[in-house]
């Protein structure tokens, strides 16, 4: 295979959607659960990201991080630092972070007005 000269084939151009200023809300239940998770320590942040994959094409990715190298918008929601990757901002604007308290399929949930569909488990969307 001719890869030695692959530099002569320029990278395909990625269409990068315009970054939007993310508006994000959190339900009381989600806020309570995050309070339990963070305690009094506000040095960490909640990273709300999107990965490719999942049954519907995109998957939510929630992490508690100290910092990240990913370029992010930083929001303050109910006293919590929330980081949203700039590359995913168009997919996450307007979302509501909820917490569903049940034994099976419980946990943090994202209600996303941008999603045209989502998979059964609610972890991925399109």
């Amino acid at each position: 295979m001719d890869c030695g000269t692959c530099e002569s084939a320029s990278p395909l151009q990625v269409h990068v959607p315009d970054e939007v200023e993310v508006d994000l809300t959190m339900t009381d239940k989600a806020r309570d659960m995050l309070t339990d998770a963070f305690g009094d320590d506000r040095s960490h942040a909640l990273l709300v990201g999107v990965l490719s994959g999942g049954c519907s094409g995109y998957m939510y990715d929630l992490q508690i991080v100290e910092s990240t190298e990913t370029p992010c918008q930083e929001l303050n929601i109910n006293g919590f630092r929330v980081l949203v990757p700039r590359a995913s901002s168009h997919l996450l604007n307007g979302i509501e972070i909820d917490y569903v308290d049940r034994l099976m399929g419980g946990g943090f949930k994202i209600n996303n007005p941008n999603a045209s569909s989502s998979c059964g488990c609610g972890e991925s969307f399109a």
Partner: protein
Amino acid sequence: MGLHHVDGYVLLLQGENILPFLDGLSSNLVNGPCTTVFTDRAAKIIDACDVLVIGENVALVGYGDEKDRLTRHLLDHLLGQNIQIRDISSLNKIYIGDGEEDYPPGATVHEGWFGTVCILGNSIDFEPTWTEEDWREHRIQNAIPFAKHEVTSRHHPFACGLAELVHSSKGCYLGQEVLTRMRSRGKFGHRLAVKENPVTGATTVGKAHSLSIERIQ
């Protein structure tokens, strides 16, 4: 034994976490060299590709007319990941065969699901040993579906004989819910068949037998 020249494309992916990225968008478990099927939300085929691991890079080799659609699909899902995609199709020629060939020096050889794939840079002279007809008869004898014939965007992988490329336990990917439901219910709608000629609506016509995608009653 033989090797046939096919019209296809080679996309070179460079960057980080390339295999997990491809795994999340296709039906087979992609954790190394393999063949996998990229599907849309309705589980219809975008394209079936061989995945070659070349050092830290990954090459995707496809055989259909869907290069632009697949490329757009991949780019749309990058979301800022450190992966670059280069189209190196024009630098290489793609051959496919039964794996019993002596390959010229410089060949990149991959044991794929459709056959043994050999990729040669344009500067390497090589005369294919199989004609289009040889390849067609080989496919019919071995019930191998292929791009532009059976493997098209009108079908899902089960309908065109690609069930072996649909991993049953790898987890979520685009189209997975539909395919898992089909498999669990045993309802596939259509299937690949090898039939004696004449065959109405054949997708690949051979001398004595043909391939077709038939409705399951």
